[in-house]
Structure formats: C-alpha cells, structure tokens
C-alpha cells in the first residue's frame, strides 16, 4: 500500500442526515454524462435496484425496525469505496486500467481496460460494473473535477451534507467530534476512501462488519499465481531433468524384429 495517508481525500457519508433526495444520483449522471435507464417500480423507492454501468452511485432505501416509529427508514449511499488495499487493483491484469489518483481514489482508464471483470471478482463490495462496450464503470471520485479544484459532483449537490468531501483525516476527526464513535472504513482494507459515520452496526446499513477481499482473490494471489510459475518451471525443469537423467525413450528392439 502506498503512503499517501496525509494527502488522502475521502467522501464521508452520514446516513443520519441523508434525506434520500437522490440529488447525488442525478448530479453524478449529469457530470459523467450517463444516460438514464429504463426501470420499473418494484414496490420500493430504490431505483435502480443496484449500481449499474450508468449509475456510479445510488441511494439504498431500507426499512428497518424501530422502537418509537412505524419503521426506521435508512438512506445509505452506495458507490466505490476507494479502498487503500483495493481488491480490484490487486487483481487487475491490465496495466493502467485501474490507477490510484493523487487524492487516493481508485480511478480507471477505459482505453486500457480489457474487460476481464477480474475487478468484479476482486471487489469486496461488488462495485465495479461493465458498460455496453465491456469496459469498467464505477465512481472515480470525480478526479477530473478535482483536477480543476472542484469537489465531486455528488458532494457538491448534496443539500444536507450527508455526503461530504475533504481531507480524510479531517473528515474522520469531525465525524468523531460529532459523536460517531466508530467510522466505518477508517481502518478496513487499509482504510477506505468512502467512509461512513454510522450510528449503529454497519450491517443495519447494508455493509459487512468486516469487509474483506474475496477469498478467491486471496487464493488467486497467494496460490495460483505462484503455482503458475512453479507449474511451468517445474514442467520445463522436469523435462530437462528427465532428458539428462533418463534420456530419450528406448524400446526393446526385439519386439520389432519378432513381429
């Protein structure tokens, strides 16, 4: 993991002040010029049902039990977490397709993406999506806006500050000062670039208590990759060894003569 914690930027999500207006969804589409998708109402406000190649962020609506009210209605932003130890970056085979911006975000270059979807397999949060050209599509922390001194489109639009952009350290300090004991993503996966001020257990908000890079990626990384080298090397070495030690195959010439 690279040492960039000092300059690292982040988005702080505070569901307690999110009003579910979805200005963030629209702002993201406007800035990234993403088309609208034909959807259906399936009996919930949540639409699209999950992240899509044309939806880099979304609000998840969940109705959870409440002691005082008919329900507790949670609005939780969902998007790329910009992990420090990013499963997608670990596994991506295409040089330059995924890259770390100077603010610490995981951004992508569609021209370099080969569409292998390993990032899909490698993401702890099931974030990357593929567009109609088979290229990765996800939140990139508006690094193109940041380059011009602007903040991401979603945080700029958010009317209540449920999405806030800033120095990661500062955001964490502020959230803690505001009374949020634990900041989700503060240390997970080397520290997330999308951090959450949760009042209750992350699970309630639809996030795993301890997010992890999928086992398959770890296995791939720790076992299969070395095995691919050992396998080829072993085969070649074995052949060489066989040639030197045993030599080419010899048959009993008698057999031939008899027949």
């Amino acid at each position, binding site marked *: 993991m690279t040492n960039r914690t000092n300059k690292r930027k982040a988005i702080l999500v505070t569901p307690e002040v999110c009003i579910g*207006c979805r200005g963030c969804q629209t702002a993201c589409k406007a800035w990234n010029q993403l088309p609208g998708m*034909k*959807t259906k109402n399936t*009996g919930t*406000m949540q639409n699209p049902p999950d992240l899509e190649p044309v939806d880099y962020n979304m609000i998840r609506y969940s109705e959870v039990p409440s002691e005082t009210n*008919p329900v507790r*209605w949670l609005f939780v932003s969902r998007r790329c977490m910009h992990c420090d130890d990013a499963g997608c970056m670990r596994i991506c085979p295409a040089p330059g397709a995924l890259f770390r911006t100077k603010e610490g975000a995981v951004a992508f270059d569609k021209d370099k993406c080969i569409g292998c979807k390993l990032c899909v397999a490698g993401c702890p949060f099931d974030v990357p999506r593929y567009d109609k050209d088979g290229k990765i599509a996800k939140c990139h922390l508006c690094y193109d806006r940041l380059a011009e001194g602007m903040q991401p489109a979603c945080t700029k639009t958010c009317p209540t500050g449920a999405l806030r952009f800033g120095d990661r350290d500062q955001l964490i300090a502020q959230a803690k000062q505001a009374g949020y004991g634990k900041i989700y993503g503060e240390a997970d996966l080397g520290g997330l670039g999308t951090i959450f001020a949760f009042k209750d257990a992350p699970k309630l908000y639809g996030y795993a208590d301890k997010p992890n890079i999928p086992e398959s990626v770890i296995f791939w990384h720790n076992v299969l990759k070395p095995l691919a080298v050992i396998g080829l090397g072993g085969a070649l070495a074995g052949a060489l060894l066989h040639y030197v030690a045993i030599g080419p195959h010899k048959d009993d010439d008698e057999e031939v003569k008899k027949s």
Partner: protein
Amino acid sequence: MTNHWIDIRNADVILVMGSNPAENHPISMKWVKEAREKRGAKLIVVDPRFTRTAAKADVYAAMRSGTDISFLGGMIKYILENNLYFKEYVTEYTNAPFLVNPDFKTAGDLNGLFSGYDQKTRKYDTKTWSFQLGENGLPKKDHTLRNPHCVFQLLKKQYARYTLNEVSDITGTPKEKLVEVYKLYASTGRRDKVGTELYAMGWTQHTIGTQNIRAMCIIQLLLGNIGMAGGGINALRGESNVQGSTDQGLLFNILPGYLPVPTASVTELKTYIEKFTPRTKDPKSVNWWSNRGKYITSYLKAIYGAKARKENDFGYAWLPKLDEGQNGSWLVLFDQMFKGKFEGFFAWGQNPACSGANAGKVRKSLAKLKWMVNVNLFDNETGSFWKGPGMDPKDVQTEVFLLPAASSVEKEGSISNSGRWAQWRYKAIDPMGQSKPDSEIMNELYFRVKSLYLRQGGKSPEPVVNLTWNYGEKDSTGKVKEVNIHNVAKEINGYYLEDVYDKTATPPKLLGKKGELCASFVPLQADGTTSCGCWIYSQSYTQKEGKVVNMMARRGKNDPTGLGLYPEWSWAWPVNRRIIYNRASVDPHGRPWDPSRPVIKWDPVKPDPVTKKPGVWVGDVPDGPAPPMATDNGKYPFIMMAAGVGAIFGPGMVDGPFPEHYEALECPLEANLISKQRINPTIKLFGDKADAYFSCDVRYPFVASTYRVSEHWQTGVLTRHLPWQLEMQPQMFLELSEELAREKSINDGDKVIVSSGRGELWAVAVVTNRLKPFKIGGSTVHQVGMPWHFGWQYPEDGSGGESANLLTPTVGDANTMIPETKAFMVNVRKA
C-alpha cells in the same frame, strides 16, 4: 414565509406538519440540519405517512389526513391548560385581551357552528364576530384575560372539547404521542425558545385549509414565536416563483400587491378605497393598509399611464370587475368551462389535464372549447387532450395552438422565493427553436389584440388600448420590438411622475424628482403623482443618489446580525425586511425577547440617520421606524393589522373566527366525532354528476392523499422527459400499509387499480410499514397515498401511468377554493 429559508437554522423546535420538505424542498433540510446540529433543535414531523422528512424526525406522529385542526386544537388546549403560553406577548401583542360581542357563540356552544350561520345560503352573518368598542371607538380589552367575553377565554371555551381522548379518536394519533408533540412544541413558549412551523400543500389542500394555518398562527402567537428569528409560520412554496406570481396578482381576486379586485358594484375609486381601507381609531396602530388609496392609485397610474387622470378616476372604470359574489377560482372556472360557458382558454405554463382536481372533468371541459392556446415548454396532456384516453378526436372540435415558451434559463428576470426574496437572474442561453420568453409572447399577443380593438372596436376596448406598454423600443406601428424586462421591473417598482414632496414637513421636503424611480412605497401618493405596478415590490429597482440600482441583482454576502439575514443578497419584500412582524421579537421597550438572537433592537442613544434624533432600530429592517410600543410615539408590532396586534380571533375568515375541526368532504366517518357538523358548513358544493362524492361509502373505504416526490415536479412535464428522473421514479405508485395489502392480497410491486367516485387508474403497489392503519373512533381506517406526477402522454409507451387527479374531488377550501386533494376516499383492488 414570515421568515425565510436560512432562518430555519435559528429555531429550537421545528414542526413539520402539512409539508414534506425533505422531498419537496430538499434544500430546506440543510437549515433543519444546522439547527439540530448547532442548537440541538428538535424536529417534529406530523404526517399520515412516514415520509422522507419523518425519517429524520426526533418525534414523528402519524395522523389521519384532514384532521390537523383537531391535532392543533388539542395543542392549543394543552398550552392554555398548562399555562405554557408567553403571557406578556399574548397580552401585549395579540387580540387575546379584546372583548368580543357578547352574542358571539363558539363552535363549542353551537355544536360545530359559530353564531350567525344561515343554513339556506350556507354562509355566516359575521355581525357577532366583532369586538366590543369603548367610547373612544377602540376595542375594549381585559389585560387580565379573565373577562368571559375576551378572546382568550373564548379560545379556551372553543378548544375545551379538544381533549386528548377526543383528539386521539379523531386523528388516530396515540395519546402519548400527542402529549409528546404538544409538550415539545409548547416548550417554545419561553422567551429564550423559538419554534417554527413549515407547511405546504398538506395544509392548504383541504376544505379547511385556511383554518389549518390559522390554528397554527394561534399557537405561534400564544407561544410568542411570530416575528422571532427561528420562528414564524412558513409556507414552503411549491414552485420556484409561485410567491412572485401571487405577489403580482396571479389569483382572480387580487391585483398586484394584494389589492382586492373590485366588484361591479364598486364603481368609483373613492368607494373602492373606502370599502377596502381598514380603519382604526387607535393612535398606536400603524394600520399600514390605510395606505390602500396610494397603492391602488399608483397601480392605476402604472398600468394606464397618462390616460389615468384625476378627472377619469385614474381609469378605475377600466379595471376588470368581478360580479358580486363571483368566484373565479380554478374549480369554478373549469366548472363553467364544463358547462360550455367558455369559448377559449389560455393554458399558460400549466397542465390542467393532469394538475386539476377531478382531471377527468377538466379534460371533458377542454373538449367544450372552441379554441385553446397551450403555452408551454413541451406539448403536454392538456395540449394533446383531444387524443388522450377516452377521447375520440373526431368528436373534439377544439382547435389547439401550441406556443413554445422559453425555459427559465433562456430568459432574464426575477423570481421570488418563499422567503420573499426577489432574486434577479440572467439568461444563460438563447431560447431554442421558435420558443420565446413569456414576455415576448405577451407582447405579440397584446399588440395584435390591441390592433384588432383599434380597427374593429369592441364592447370595452379601453382596458386594453389604454394600457401603457413602455417595455422597449417601438417600431413605426408603435409596437414594442423586443421586451426589455428591466423596464417591466422598473414599472413594478414605480416612478415619481412629478416632483413629489412630503407635505407634512415644513417646509415641504422633496421626496423624489420627476422621472426617477421610487425609493420605496413610502413616498407613493394617492394623487396620481407616482406610479407603482406592485407596491410591495417598490424599492426592488430603485434610484440611489441618482444612480439606478437593481436591488434584486445584489449579491453581497454580509451578515451583520449573524442570523443569516444577508441583507445585501438580492432583495426581500417589503423594503428588504427579512423577517416580517419583527417588532414582535422585542418587548414593548424594544429589547429583544431573546438577546441571543436579536432580529432588531432599539438603540435609544444612536441618532436616526434621517431625523438625526436619538433612537434608532438596529438589525433587520424594522416593521416601521416608529419607536418601541411602550414609548410615547410607539406603535403596535403587527402593522398590517388594523388593531396592530396578532389575530387569535380572526373574524376575516368565512368559516369562523376560530378554526374548528370538520371532516373532509369525502371522509370515512358517518359523523364528526366532535360536533354535529360533519363538513365545513361554508364550502361550495358542485352539483354535476361528474363531481360525485362519497363519504362513508363501502365502495370507497380508504382515505387517500396525493403528494409529490423529490424525483419529479408537478405534473411531470419537465421531469417525465428527463430519463434521469424517470429512472428513479418510473411509474405511478400507490403506497399502502402491510395490513391493507394483506387484506386485499396485494404484494409489493403488484399492479393495483385505484378508483374513486370520479375515475380510476393503475398504480404499482408499494407495500410498506411507513403507513399504518388508524384507529378512529374505535374502527380501523386505512390510509393510502400516491403521487400526481404522471400522465398518459409520456413516457410514450404508457409505462408511467396516469394522473392521480383523475381521482380527486371537485371541492375547495371555504376561503381560498384550493382543491381538497389531500383527503378523499378511494378503493384499491389488485389489477
């Protein structure tokens, strides 16, 4: 709004009732959040549904739609019983001590009716709704508030019946919840605590809509929350410029600046002024409306210019007049159209085929027209009504014209927000295609109509041909080539037509030079020497030291009070006052009730910049420069009221001086639980079969409300064409409780048919615990809700659904005639 958006952050308790700001005014929640974070403010949400606003509430109370007065009546009783009102404020700044006519009877005395009701005309004779006058001609008062005829005692009497049991039975809100809300809100009755109320169509769109708001006004006066920073009663307007359009005379019964439209019997300007100018003999009352004559005369000068002369009554005769008792409001207008009384119709920036209550009737009405002009950004269900569902184009003779209008970013001008800020904005791009700004469309129309009158004459050409139209350079025929919107703004602000002097001063002091823009409405004259298109906007485009200043274009960010008034940012009517009735935020000596948030305060030492005499108000622009009430020349704080005080007793209403709970026209109950009078006795009832309504009818057993969601706007003409918005909310839906869904075997996401006495439509079922059945008077009442953003025309594949207004009834509020779309009865079945 009495206050303004940013001011929400100064509140200690925020009551959201009759609105859903998180969804419909999202930006307001920024200030709600600030109040909560910085002041520890509490948010109370009272709504039949657990809305996105409710999701943020500290206290949420569910209440059956249409029972707000009962809910608030219970709060009034709670405040009075527990002595939680702000005593000094109530005795000094409200009419609580005023003695009322002994013959006046409350709705408690007369089982739901106030004294003076006439069953036949369905109207009140308001003779008894008056104050006892003393020999000096002033209302008699009892500052101890003990006199049984004083407003305070009558108020107690009126709401004595609104017990917790009774209110809970009517509203369906559990008693503990009622107490929790009452207690929390009443905690603002202290001088150092302030509560604000945010309402919108959830209060207005009822047959008792105006009284809903009145009930809250009473509470705010009792708690001393009017005029305070973080207080007030705040209407969140549903469109970006609806405040502006109302200010400028959009409604049938008001001219710009809230001047009444004259009726036919008032034939002379003098009579008009006499009739509509309130009077008081109290020297301490400013009674600002005593200036009515100046404002109407200056208005006539603005619209008729040199043609308006003293000799011809300033052209008063040319002003359109209403017939006596004529109601020209929306429902009546379409009822008349339905009856074939109209030939033509301009649907200008609206979509009545989807937005009008009982939209099916509206659509049929349009078919009775000879012609219709649809002025809009897009074609809509109104312009294309003739090919809509149930219409056979062969049978429709209406000729429809579409005039494409420019959008708000394609033109320059001002818009006025809910906080009364008139903000200037600029054109970003040229109008697309053949579309034109509204002003250009009006310009074309005006000169064509005028030339027809000039060439062919007509019954009454003067109101048209005599209009001034100095909005830009004219061509050889006298037609304005292009409207300069600044000229319109200046006309609204008003001019000195002569050198105008203050004749009360000796020697007379020059107020303004001929040809200059008026400094404010203060120097306006009733003698024709000033013009002003809308008096409350005078000062918005003014002249300072000879230089013309567009105050609305100001973008200063100074905030000297620290209360977020931002006096140099744009301009607020009246005279840049950011919080109206701000003289009520100080005690009679001019000291702020709460020194920690002083809107204004009297500085007795500092010299007045104009008079140079010591004593001046600092802070916001005060409601008049007069010194504090307790001083010699002091004035009462409520300058727009003839009596100078806040009206707990409000005799100006048609349906009673106190709000009384009545059921909606369509309700689930056979009888009003609190009186014999089930519905508002003064509402207009429409008689056509298309207006059918059903109360307590097994065919339509469920209470329904219509509403908006953040993803769409109004009838969706602007948002249904936007794939981004449609992606989030693609289809008409119906929210219903899990209990009702179970009863009807409806699953989340199922298609259902919703029907009312007027029509039916399909919707996608959103089954949720956010709606719960109510226990009303011992029986279960289900409440459902649906948005009104959809229409048959777009999306083109019909996947969006239809307008909820196909279901809503043709009935309006007794005072304003706003349709009752928040409480009516429907049935639901699985499609």
